[in-house]
């Protein structure tokens, strides 16, 4: 079983090489990419089955004994996130095949490099999830970031270059900080192996501990888009092509959240910075959702709700209890699926109606009832309407928060409830204005959109085209996956609870990796 672990990184890298060689033959490229991601999905499911009883798969790469060489570790959390990511990557791949990664002014997009880069991105995401040492985590981050630089600027149009520059520079700052933090951790503890760091970090002076902790959290906070380090996200994500935005929204910030979760549970299990995390979580939720209310563009609105919901995940981590961690894990899985689905639906709207600016949209429900279903189900899910998984995840977080007995946590729980309510407003406004409003009334405007400002630089192209079957199938598959999470929430929540309990008990991880 251990032999499967490195394959989740090797296969996408080999697939990328193969797809690059086959750059003149799009059909072969797509086949390679789809086969690779399907294989990783299969491996992910096998890994879940292998670690579901609480075991850990530890793979010392190159046969070097554990604390010295690179080590790959799969526990319950890694296996779960790996599998969900593979499923999401596969669905978005199918969507991009249908879309032909071309909408509006992107008809010259260099398709031949899209699939190889996409597979490299997948390799980076998977590597980050199974990294057993801090430097390998850094390398995983760099793999996914460098390929994300290429993907966010694919096509090279002017707005994309502008947004890409912001994104790249912010990511570079975060990476540099992360690298410096790795160096500082190595200087303080003499190792970069996460299990060994966990053992040795307790013996450090408290000041040094806090310094290292804050450096790592800041670096990961930028990647996870936590307020006040989140300004770059709504600025850069919406300009990319639809499948790229979808996969970035679903996965890249979650890799940051995963790194924060590991830092808080394995490297620095102490509660010193938990109040800071809770305050930051509350602000992230509130500022994110208030930003979403002001947006006229569906993609920008969704980017702000993405930031807002990162706050829920950080809240779960910041509670520092097994219940909080479990709820955060469940909510991460739910949010990866739902946020990706909504961005894919936004891509469908863009293809069908030619724009995603809600002041120009109308009559979508009459034009395409299927599109209405594909939007409404994940939107209600994100808004936390029972019985969907968003409701279950939020309920878990609120319960875990209410179990703590201090005013700060209660305040954050209150903000979480308020944010949940406010999230519904922009989502339902899109429904009312774009789907329910008759197309004939678009010119009159609507009281719901009076206060919104359109992007004055965005060309008002209204280029209605029919939807390609793979796009609809992929989105429908993602909606079904979201419903599936709701239906199988019982076993999944149980799995997340087990994972959360193991994470909170950090010596388990240390014993598992170091084999003592």
């Amino acid at each position, binding site marked *: 079983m251990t032999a499967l672990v490195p394959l989740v990184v090797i296969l996408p890298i080999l697939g990328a090489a193969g797809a690059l060689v086959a750059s003149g033959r799009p059909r072969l490229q797509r086949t390679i990419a789809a086969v690779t991601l399907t294989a990783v999905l299969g491996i992910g499911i096998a890994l879940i089955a292998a670690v579901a009883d609480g075991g850990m798969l530890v793979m010392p790469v190159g046969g070097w004994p554990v604390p010295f060489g690179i080590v790959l570790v799969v526990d319950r959390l890694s296996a779960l996130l790996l599998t969900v990511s593979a499923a999401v990557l596969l669905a978005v791949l199918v969507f991009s095949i249908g879309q032909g990664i071309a909408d509006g002014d992107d008809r010259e997009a260099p398709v031949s490099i899209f699939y190889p880069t996409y597979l490299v991105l997948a390799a980076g995401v998977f590597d980050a999830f199974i990294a057993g040492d801090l430097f390998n985590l850094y390398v995983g981050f760099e793999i996914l970031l460098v390929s994300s630089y290429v993907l966010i600027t694919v096509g090279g149009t002017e707005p994309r270059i502008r947004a890409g520059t912001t994104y790249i520079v912010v990511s570079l700052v975060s990476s540099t900080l992360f690298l410096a933090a790795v160096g500082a951790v190595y200087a303080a503890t003499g190792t970069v192996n996460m299990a060994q760091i966990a053992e040795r970090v307790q013996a450090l002076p408290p000041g040094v501990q806090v310094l290292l902790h804050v450096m790592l959290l800041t670096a990961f906070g930028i990647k996870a888009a936590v307020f006040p380090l989140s300004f770059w996200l709504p600025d850069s994500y919406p300009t990319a092509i639809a499948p790229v935005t979808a996969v970035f929204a679903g996965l890249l910030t979650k890799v940051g959240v995963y790194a924060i979760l590991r830092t808080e549970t394995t490297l620095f299990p102490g509660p010193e910075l938990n109040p800071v995390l809770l305050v930051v979580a509350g602000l992230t939720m509130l500022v994110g959702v208030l930003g979403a209310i002001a947006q006229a563009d569906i993609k920008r609105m969704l980017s702000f709700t993405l930031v807002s919901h990162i706050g829920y995940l950080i809240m779960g981590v910041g509670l520092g209890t097994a219940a909080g961690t479990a709820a955060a894990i469940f909510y991460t899985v739910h949010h990866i699926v739902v946020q990706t689905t909504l961005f894919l639906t936004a891509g469908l709207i863009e293809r069908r109606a030619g724009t995603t600016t809600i002041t120009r949209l109308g009559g979508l429900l009459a034009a395409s009832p299927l599109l209405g279903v594909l939007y409404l189900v994940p939107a209600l899910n994100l808004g936390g309407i029972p019985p969907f998984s968003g409701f279950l995840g939020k309920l878990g977080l609120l319960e875990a928060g209410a179990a703590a007995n201090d005013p700060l946590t209660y305040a954050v729980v209150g903000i979480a409830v308020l944010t949940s309510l406010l999230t519904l407003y922009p989502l339902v406004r899109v429904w009312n204005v774009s789907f329910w409003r008759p197309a004939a009334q678009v010119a009159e405007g609507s009281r719901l959109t009076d206060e919104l400002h359109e992007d*004055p630089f965005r060309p008002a192209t209204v280029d209605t085209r029919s939807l390609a079957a793979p796009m609809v199938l992929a989105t429908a598959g993602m909606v079904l996956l979201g419903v599936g999470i709701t239906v199988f929430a019982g076993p999944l929540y149980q799995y997340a609870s087990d994972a959360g309990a193991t994470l909170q008990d950090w010596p388990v991880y240390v014993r598992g990796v170091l084999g003592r």
Partner: protein
Amino acid sequence: MSVSIALLGAMAVLYACGVYLLLDKSVTRIIIGVLLIGNATNLLLLSLAGPPGAPPIAGSGTSSDPLPQALILTAIVITFAVSAFLMALVYRSWRLAQEDRVERDAADVAIGQGDAPEPEEASADEESEFDRPGAEQ
């Protein structure tokens, strides 16, 4: 652990200059800033390797620590790749718009300006480092 004061000083200067350049709006300067910060971080890692002069191979008393050097090599490669990409980006930006400045987000500007968004205002407040020929090439 003793640290070479010269390395430390060089690192501080590189970080300071790098951060200053990174905050500029010109992408060319940002690239130079990224390179300086990358090298400052490499110096930071190098100064963690212990005092200079120790032999590189184990078995002859105290040897120098190979791990920070491996980290630096990886970091150099990554910085190299990213700067190459950034240069391609600034070239593309130059071909498209005849300038290398990072503009503000248009939709942000629209929300910030309230009721009357004026597209021209966003780029008028600062002059480009390059002359702007009127015609697109």
